[in-house]
């Protein structure tokens, strides 16, 4: 899932001030899951803005703001565009852009889009994938050294991997320890002797696209 972080309410207030009526969009997929931009947070932002004298013309949180079909079918965008002066979106960067493509009023974002990650006991989220376009985890026990090692090392740990901790931030584990024990566990540790070639960075030059036409 895409993990986002709600901006400080004061910052949001500063951004929307001077626009007039604000329509707030959340997103029930990623933003709601990480409790930083679902319906609940959208209402919290609305309450705060109203307490500061900002007029809120509506609050909606579709079940996936980045899914165009659902949005248009609900007509929420048209409604928002008609009776508001600005839209504040708590959806991820992709969802927010999609909203902007469908309205003719300004669209602001109330979140920072952080990463593709997983949820840990509803308490925190860890980055697991940077969508590098050339997945290597079949070779590394299903654990990603691209996203989970700050240096994206594929040929084994760096010399700063001390006592299981990462040199970059000792509060996070060096992922190569996890990869080693996982590969041991599944009997594939020998695979890690193989030198991995340099990455072809053409696989992650943006903007990328996925084309379904002409697929066999």
């Amino acid at each position, binding site marked *: 899932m895409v993990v986002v972080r709600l901006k400080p309410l004061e910052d949001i207030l500063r951004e929307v001030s001077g626009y007039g009526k604000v329509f707030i969009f959340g997103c029930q997929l990623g933003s709601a899951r990480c409790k930083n931009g679902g319906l609940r947070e959208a209402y919290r932002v609305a309450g705060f803005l109203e307490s500061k004298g900002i007029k809120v013309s509506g609050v909606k949180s579709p079940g996936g703001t980045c899914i165009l079909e659902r949005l248009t079918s609900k007509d929420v965008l048209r409604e928002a565009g008609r009776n508001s002066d600005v839209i504040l979106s708590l959806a991820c960067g992709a969802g927010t852009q999609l909203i902007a493509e469908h309205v003719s009023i300004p669209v602001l974002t109330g979140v920072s889009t952080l990463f593709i990650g997983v949820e840990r006991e509803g308490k925190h989220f860890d980055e697991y994938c940077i969508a590098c376009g050339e997945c290597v985890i079949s070779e590394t026990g299903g654990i990603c050294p691209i996203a989970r090692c*700050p*240096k*994206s*090392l*594929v*040929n*084994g*740990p*760096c*010399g*700063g*991997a*001390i*006592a*299981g901790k990462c*040199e*970059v931030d000792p509060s996070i584990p*060096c992922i*190569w*320890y996890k*990869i*080693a*024990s996982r590969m041991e566990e599944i009997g594939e*540790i020998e695979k*890690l*002797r193989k*030198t991995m*070639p*340099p*990455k072809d*960075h053409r696989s992650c030059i943006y903007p990328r696209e996925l084309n379904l036409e002409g697929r066999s």
Partner: protein
Amino acid sequence: MTLCEKLSKGKFVITAEVAPPRGIDYHKVLSGLKPLKGKVDAFNVTDCQRSMVRMSSLVMSHLLLKEGFEPVLQLTCRDRNRIALQSDLLGAAALGIRNICLMTGDFTTLGDQPDAKPVFDLDSVQLIELASSLNRGCLMNGKEIDARTNFCIGAVFNPFAGPETLQVWKLEKKVKAGARFIQTQPIYDIKLAEEVSELISSTGAYPIIGLLPIKSLKMANFMKKLNPTSVPDSLVEGLERSSDPARYGWEYVVDLAKGIYEFGKGIHFMLVGKVKELANFIDYLRNNGRGNEKN
């Protein structure tokens, strides 16, 4: 004789580390090294070590060479993609720089420009492969160049890092990729130095054991923070007891160096603080050591 010729002839080598200046005045650095001329076999020129901005290691290596010192150009993957790395290596070859020591490099956020973009396009193993390919007369993409480079390629090994199996395999990958000598992180235990020398030799490369004189208890604690198992308790106790910890730390490392001289292939001083003492010590080693050294 170059560093690699000495290594292949079985001569015990002594290298030392030089940091380029944090500025443009390199004269002080060069004049400081004078007492070591003809004694230290080669000087590793660090590449913005600890991610702190300093003068380019390539330029500083060239300046050393011009002054009659043999440099080991250190190059990391932190700041350059494969285009820049190849370009710098071709430049180094053109300037007559023979020795290179290739490594992944410290992370950007640990230095004085934590907001910089980390590059890490290649890793150390792939960078060594790249240099080997230049030695065969080809760029990384296989295109031939007008001449072969003639680099003596080195790499690094930290015996305190883990997981052990993967660190050893990575070392093997580096040697397979073309590393001929391996310089280690500082070691403070003679038995460990011997084991590490054997390990590196078994991969087919020349081991050069890192030595870093500890100047104070504070420094010992700092080293312990980096590598908890690297500094033995006996060393810390000695420093605590000593009325002159700097002297104690120096003598500790000198004893270690004498021990390594008996079985090893080389040592690498990671600090050239005590230039005169180091020069004297090297004279002592050369004159009192193994028979094959007297030449």
